[in-house]
């Protein structure tokens, strides 16, 4: 595994006008590492993920992403990025082509799509239009979309919202598998899901990140 961090933030701050959202955020994330980010409402967790994804500009500080050429960032927020008129499989096909996913020689693209649907338990809904899926099913399909892209950096903003117990377990398994493949993962959440294997940090309003020592982490 590469010793250099995949992502480095140095004293990053974000302001909307004169209102600080967060400031002095410093962190490093290595390939294969999972960071569980918590914090009260309004502390800027989602904004921090958007800044890391490149969807929002930091107001101050340094942000360094060490991704190989062609490496992808996977970003899952409250919106699923699915086209409601397309079927589940058509959605996956479009995004995999648009993100230039190269199917492995062993599996063709068709088999990769079926495999992604199978992994999130949606193989029977491959031909269902996304608009007819429940919130939880759409969230699972959105996760399948991300996993198909095999991102080097996976940014998940409350990925388990709207999921039932079984779907949450499935999501935890897939997130862990992505990290084992070498993806750096930052997930925002309020619950305890996936905390066991993750480094934990809390974003405190108007302050920086507070990292919990593994031993000190509350059970």
């Amino acid at each position, binding site marked *: 595994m590469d010793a250099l961090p995949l992502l480095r933030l140095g004293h990053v701050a974000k302001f909307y006008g004169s209102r600080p959202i967060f400031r002095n955020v410093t962190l490093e994330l290595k390939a294969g590492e999972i960071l569980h980010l918590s914090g009260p409402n309004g502390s800027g967790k989602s904004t921090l993920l958007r800044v890391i994804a*490149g969807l929002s500009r930091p107001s101050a500080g340094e942000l360094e992403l060490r991704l190989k050429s062609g490496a992808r960032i996977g970003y899952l927020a*409250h*919106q699923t990025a699915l086209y409601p008129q397309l079927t589940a499989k058509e959605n996956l096909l479009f995004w995999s082509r648009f993100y230039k996913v190269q199917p492995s020689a062993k599996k063709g693209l068709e088999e990769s799509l079926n495999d992604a649907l199978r992994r999130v338990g949606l193989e029977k809904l491959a031909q269902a239009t996304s608009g007819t899926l429940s919130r939880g099913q759409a969230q699972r399909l959105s996760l399948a979309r991300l996993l198909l892209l095999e991102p080097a950096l996976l940014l998940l903003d409350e990925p388990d919202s709207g999921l039932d117990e079984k779907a949450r377990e499935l999501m935890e398994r897939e997130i862990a598998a992505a990290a084992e493949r070498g993806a750096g993962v930052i997930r925002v959440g309020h619950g305890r899901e996936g905390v066991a294997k993750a480094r934990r940090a809390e974003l405190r309003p108007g302050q920086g990140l507070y990292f919990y020592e593994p031993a000190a982490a509350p059970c």
Partner: protein
Amino acid sequence: MLKGALILCRKDLALLAGRGGGLVQALLLGLLLIFIFSLTRGPGEAVSPQAAAAIFWISSLFCQVLLFTALYALEESDGQRQALLLAPLPGQSVWLGKALAGLTLLGLAQLVFLPASVIFLGQGMSGSIPGGLALILLTDLGLAALGSMLGALAQGGANQAGRNGPAARESLFSILAFPLLLPLLLAGIRTGAALFAPAAGLEDYGDWVRLILACDAVFSGAGLLLFGFIYDSRE
């Protein structure tokens, strides 16, 4: 960039043309305009070729406004724009993909508007048909290049104003598009007579054709250079 644009174009065509999306609405509006203008002529009278060309292009223009607002609205319903921006492709792929989809849909609509103009406005296709069609296509290129840029701009403006409804997008698009498109439309109307007027030769339209080509080049260049800034929604 081209491959990404073609993938996006194919998806948009499937959504807008294949699944009863915005194309039907745009077609109906254009046909309605041609029909209403046809009521202005008396029994047995024919509209002049120039006026018929003007009505044809006005219908095409309204169709363009509806098509490009619909094309960009597709990316706003559930965070698709963010996912497009995160793809490892230049942002201009989106501009080109939407322009190609808009060009195809506009061309399809004009395949209906053209015979409708002949029937309802009493025109004969007595001019140079291949030349006239080529001039329509050249004008369409400019409409699509600018339409794709303004569609993104109108969508961004409507988002920032907190009005993500079709009325806000279409109003903004129309305000931006009409002044910029005037020279191109004027040239389209003047050269439209090449299709409808008897014995009209293309050699009479040299200056207008050059104006169309200049507009195509300027709008395409502006799209390629500016689209990255226009579609970037980062705060």
